[in-house]
């Protein structure tokens, strides 16, 4: 065992996760918060649900493994996303954006892009819940 520094995170629904600092710092948000948080004993609160955080940590753990081949990583990534439905995927995108964890954010965004690639414009509108009202709303907001 290495003498790695550990960090405790507390999710929005009260669960606590303990990780190695080096792994947690894949999130720039956590890294910046930790540098300003002088009291090392209190867990760091993050605005992410625990079920999403579990997935994030799963991804980070796999990508931190040594001696893992490109091929194995690719297979892991493929399976990691394959099982996610749209709402879990969106949760992951929002969470990794909030956490400023770019590697996973980009992987998740690329996955979403893959899912909409063959869709018609109508289907894409449906997928992202884009409505005409959006534009009228924005227009109204801008003019007020």
């Amino acid at each position, binding site marked *: 065992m290495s003498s790695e520094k550990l960090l405790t995170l507390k999710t929005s629904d009260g669960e606590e996760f303990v990780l190695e600092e080096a792994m947690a710092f894949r999130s720039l*948000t956590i890294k910046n918060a930790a540098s*300003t948080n002088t009291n090392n004993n209190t867990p760091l*609160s993050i605005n992410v649900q625990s079920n999403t955080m579990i997935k994030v940590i799963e991804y980070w753990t796999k990508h931190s493994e040594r001696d893992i081949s490109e091929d194995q990583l690719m297979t892991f990534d493929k399976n990691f996303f394959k099982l996610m439905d749209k709402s879990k995927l*969106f949760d992951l995108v*929002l969470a990794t954006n*909030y956490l400023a964890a770019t590697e996973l954010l980009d992987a998740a965004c*690329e996955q979403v892009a893959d899912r909409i690639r063959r869709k018609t*414009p109508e289907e894409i*509108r449906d997928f992202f819940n*884009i409505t005409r009202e959006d534009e009228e709303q924005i227009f109204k907001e801008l003019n007020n």
Partner: protein
Amino acid sequence: MEAFHHAPISFHFPYAFPVPTPTTNFLGTTTAPNLSINGSDTWMDSRIWSRLPHRLIDRIVAFLPPPAFFRARAVCKRFYGLLYSTHFLELYLQVSPQRHWFIFFKQKVPRNNIYKNNNSTNAGSNSVEGYLFDPDNLSWYGLSFALIPQGFSPVSSSGGLICFVSDEAGSKNILLCNPLVGSIIPLPPTLRPRLFPSIGLTITNSSIDLAVAGDDLISPYAVKNLTTESFHIDGNGFYSIWGTTSSLPRLCSFESGKMVHVQGRFYCMNFSPFSVLSYDIGTNNWSKIQAPMRRFLRSPSLVEGNGRLVLVAAVEKSKLNVPRSLRLWALQDCGTMWVEIERMPQQLYVQFAELENGQGFNCVGHGEFVVIMIKNNSDKALLFDFCKKRWLWIPPCPFVGGNSNVDYGGTSNNYGGEYGGGELHGFGYDPRLAAPIGALLDQLTLPFQSFN
């Protein structure tokens, strides 16, 4: 694909992208909740989070391959305008993955037109058409090049731009074109008169290097491979416009074609006997490299494969006990030795040889893909994937040959006109929505000649 806008667009990008600081939220999304160290409970309201914020949707759209991106522009006004949004394009340049695609064009005939090409008799054969090939999905797309003027042919591509060179003998005019947005950037014309020189091109986000070699017109009807001119511009303000000319090795005879760029050098195939000519961009020097098994090669081509120079050729010598095969060799780091890295599976080679029937084949490569096209038969082409070690027959291009009733703003039935009987030639092309190099060229004031 959607029709393209015809107004040339110039993009101005700062070369430094914003760096996250402790005080700003990394991605600048205003709708994301702030990090709370004290642990206040803010629930994610499902009404707010049922839709992703615009910045994140933009990030997702930035990952779409160009054909899907252009289809997505029909989703809403905001998506439509992304192509012109500086914010989106900066994001795009940061996240969009490199795509190892290809673009093909119909071969123009005849090639020996020292005489001025009289196009007035060919109705509707004017606009150049390109055929975009996606090797991951084995799909074809048509691309219009309506803005390219008469008398220019595509020769090379790099950094998302396609290079067109004037056909007429003499000083050559050069255009860099991004067909996805319809932009054309002219470069200053070359100095020495040439017929059909070989062109090498490499473009990065902050530099352009171009080499024009051979086919010097030593008299109006005689060509000789004598010199090379090179062009260089980079973001540090250093530029050399056809200033340096270097001599080609004596007695070299390369067919006019493209040069392949690998790590700071351009390479092209030299014939009788087979060898490889290498041009060092930094020092403007040429050198010769012996080809492997040079006496037994047939139809050799050079391609760039995952950062290495790869020679693809058929091997046959009836006198030896060398089985006929199609092989790939990679040039080693020493720059003189080749190592065989791949051979076409024998069963497949039998099929291939039957179709090819000794006519020869051309190869183009991009990243981990190599496309092998049988000459005089545009229907049959093979795709080889270095990473997956896979050989596949490519579905024929639907825009060429029998299916040429597709309307792309110009007729495809040109068998009697400028374009020959369906033979395709092409090169690797990474379709990009924006190429920062355009901004670089705009900033430098250079004496461009109009190409009218």
